[in-house]
């Protein structure tokens, strides 16, 4: 059985009176792609920010590869790669310089061969010919692909991804899916937060649904279907059911002229 790489216990984060994440327990295994879903404001981004060390939890623990984030943040960060949803980069550096900069931030990553790995990813994403151009001239998709390359080249044990496909063209999105699968086969744990049910359903081994800061359901697709009490439904239907979006049924009925009255959403 594969080992748990990322563990959280009773992880909570409050902002004044508002509890964004409440007693969250997660176990993400090596070689697993874990989908993290939830409606807007459910606590996904807050959870991710705590996992990557950008936010201090109000209570609870985070352990990465057995190391406690509170006691050894540097050790945890050495093992983690983070792909944010918005591609903020150093605009005045070239793509190549950016990759050098990132590889110097993680000197121990990929056995010192991160930059050699980067060449392959730049080719895959059709970025090679732009590598010596300033990032300020890159499109949104090119920036996203550069961030992906910079994280994948590090061969980290854990990759945390927030909305991976935003701004990517269909070809690049396909490449990303294949790369995530390949990384998982090599033993990397991937924590993937997304609003795209298709991607989660297609890619993830297990899925956790967070609502109002708490895990509402967690498991494989079959386990989620069982929990939702449904048959062969798609993740979107299960998600809507589990997140209590019942009012949506009325909206859809109204929009479709009540033709769905006897159908499940």
């Amino acid at each position, binding site marked *: 059985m594969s080992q748990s790489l990322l563990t959280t216990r009773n992880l909570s984060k409050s902002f004044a009176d508002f509890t964004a994440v409440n007693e969250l327990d997660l176990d993400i295994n090596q070689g697993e792609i874990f989908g993290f879903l939830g409606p807007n404001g459910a606590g996904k981004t807050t959870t991710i920010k705590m996992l990557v060390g950008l936010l201090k939890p109000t209570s609870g623990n985070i352990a990465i590869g057995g190391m406690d984030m509170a006691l050894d943040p540097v050790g945890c960060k050495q093992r983690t790669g983070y792909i944010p949803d918005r591609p903020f980069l*150093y605009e005045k550096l070239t793509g190549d310089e950016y990759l050098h900069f990132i590889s110097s931030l993680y000197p121990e990553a990929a056995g010192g061969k991160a930059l050699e790995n980067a060449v392959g990813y730049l080719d895959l994403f059709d970025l090679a010919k732009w590598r010596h151009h300033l990032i300020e001239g890159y499109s949104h998709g090119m920036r996203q692909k550069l961030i992906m390359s910079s994280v994948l080249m590090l061969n980290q044990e854990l990759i945390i991804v927030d909305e991976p496909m935003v701004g990517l063209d269909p070809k690049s999105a396909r490449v990303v899916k294949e790369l995530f699968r390949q990384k998982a086969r090599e033993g990397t744990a991937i924590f993937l937060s997304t609003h795209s049910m298709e991607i989660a359903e297609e890619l993830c081994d297990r899925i956790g649904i967070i609502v109002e800061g708490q895990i509402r359901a967690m498991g494989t697709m079959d386990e989620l279907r069982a929990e939702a009490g449904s048959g062969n439904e798609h993740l979107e239907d299960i998600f809507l059911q589990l997140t209590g979006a019942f009012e949506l049924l009325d909206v859809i009925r109204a929009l479709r002229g009540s033709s769905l009255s006897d159908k499940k959403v």
Partner: protein
Amino acid sequence: MNAALILVAGIGVCLLIYFVSSRVLQYFHSQNELGVILSLKIFQMAWIMIFTMLIFSSMISAVTTFYLAEDNEILLSSPVQPSEMYLMRYLTTAMNTSWMILVFSLPVFGAYGKIFHAGPLFWPLLVIAVPSVTLIATGIATILTVLVVYYFPARRTKDIVFYLSLCFGIFLYLVFRMIRPEELVNPDNYGQFIDYFSAVSAPAGPWLPAGWAANMISSYLLDGQVDLLLTGLLVTTPFVLFFLGQWLMDHLFVVGYSKSQESFGGHREFRPVRHFHSIRAWIWRKELKYFLRDSSEWSQFFMIAALIVVYLYNFKVLPLDRSPVSVFFVSNVISFANIGLSGFLAASLATRFVYPSISAEQGAYYLLAVSPLSWKQYLWYKYQFYFFPFTLLALVLIVISNYLLQISGPMGWVSVFTGMLLTWTSLGLALGFGMYFADFKSGSKVSTLEPGAILYLFCAIFYQVVLLLSGMPFVSRLVRRTLTEKGAAVSDYLSVCAWGSVVTMVSILLVFWLCNKAVNRRQWG
């Protein structure tokens, strides 16, 4: 609290300007009639210079407010005519560029009004003249901008105007200093200025709107007469320029805006980078590349160079020979005061370049925050990056000033040591404050008028004043005794060394405490 602090500081600066202006004008008036004429000539020159600078800065601002504004896409995709946008953009540009001149010119006008015993129409005339001149400058600038952007891409126009205005500013600064205005009221020099005064006896810039305003106010200050022609010109010209600008906006704006959407500089290919593994080397490289690849950053080198030249020139032309006391003593006193001046310069430059360098990471700060690099290491590498240029600057200012003052004896090493300590501590404080008040969410670069930056400057100056005052008794005794036949005793040297050790320790602790506090605040968001 920040707003109150800025308000108090602003009022303090205004009062300072008022008192300094009053003293200078009083001095001119106490000389003779030539002083009165001279003070009005300076008044007129200032109007014309400010008017020219306003045109340049309005052009830079207009490129942004007219062509690069983020809401342009929404407005231009809606059924709104460009001419309908013109008023909003015109007023925004006028406010952006002239509010500071409006605020800080008030105490100067107040001083002129007081010294010239101005009549009751003085302030109403200013209410016409000042807004009129700023609106005319904005009107000319927006018309020029719309015309220039019609032919060149907007971003390039912004760069061109920025360089031109910078060169113009440096030129004015150097020329003004090199004509040695302090000598204008020296009776020994009257002979050589007679020609000058006869040349400038005519009204200043009769064809320039700033000249209209200056001549209108000057004639009222001198004779109590209101020139109705000039008043009429000042009232009507802004409207004429506004309608002309609105017409041009309707006819030329869309073509210019379309050009401003073209990518700029995105196709330039840079050379492959050399391989460096060390993060220290890459942080330095990143800082350097950001500086060299941003024209608004590196071009300020010219301004700093002009500042250094004028700074040192001031020491070269100091009339030490006219001093009633010993030249040796006076030059030593000036050398000690020079430590504070160079420290102030270092703190000002740190406010401009070092303090904002933390927030300049902007959204990309997460790259550092999620990496194994600690914020303490990051600050330390940044400190090392700025250490060399700031040390060089302080050494140039202090060593060359000492050379020009012909300083010999203990003041030479005391000034170098203290100057270095002030510079290095100011640098550390700038990073500490920059980290503590860092705003990574800001879309644009942090301004030097941001509350944290102002607070840093106040604290750095306060620290420098306290340090210099604490050392003054020891240094002064050492210098005075060096002048005597017996010379200074060992105890004099020891007391200065003890003072140096204590202030060094205090400075190091201060920087460490602040940086630690800032890092703890930043850690974990």
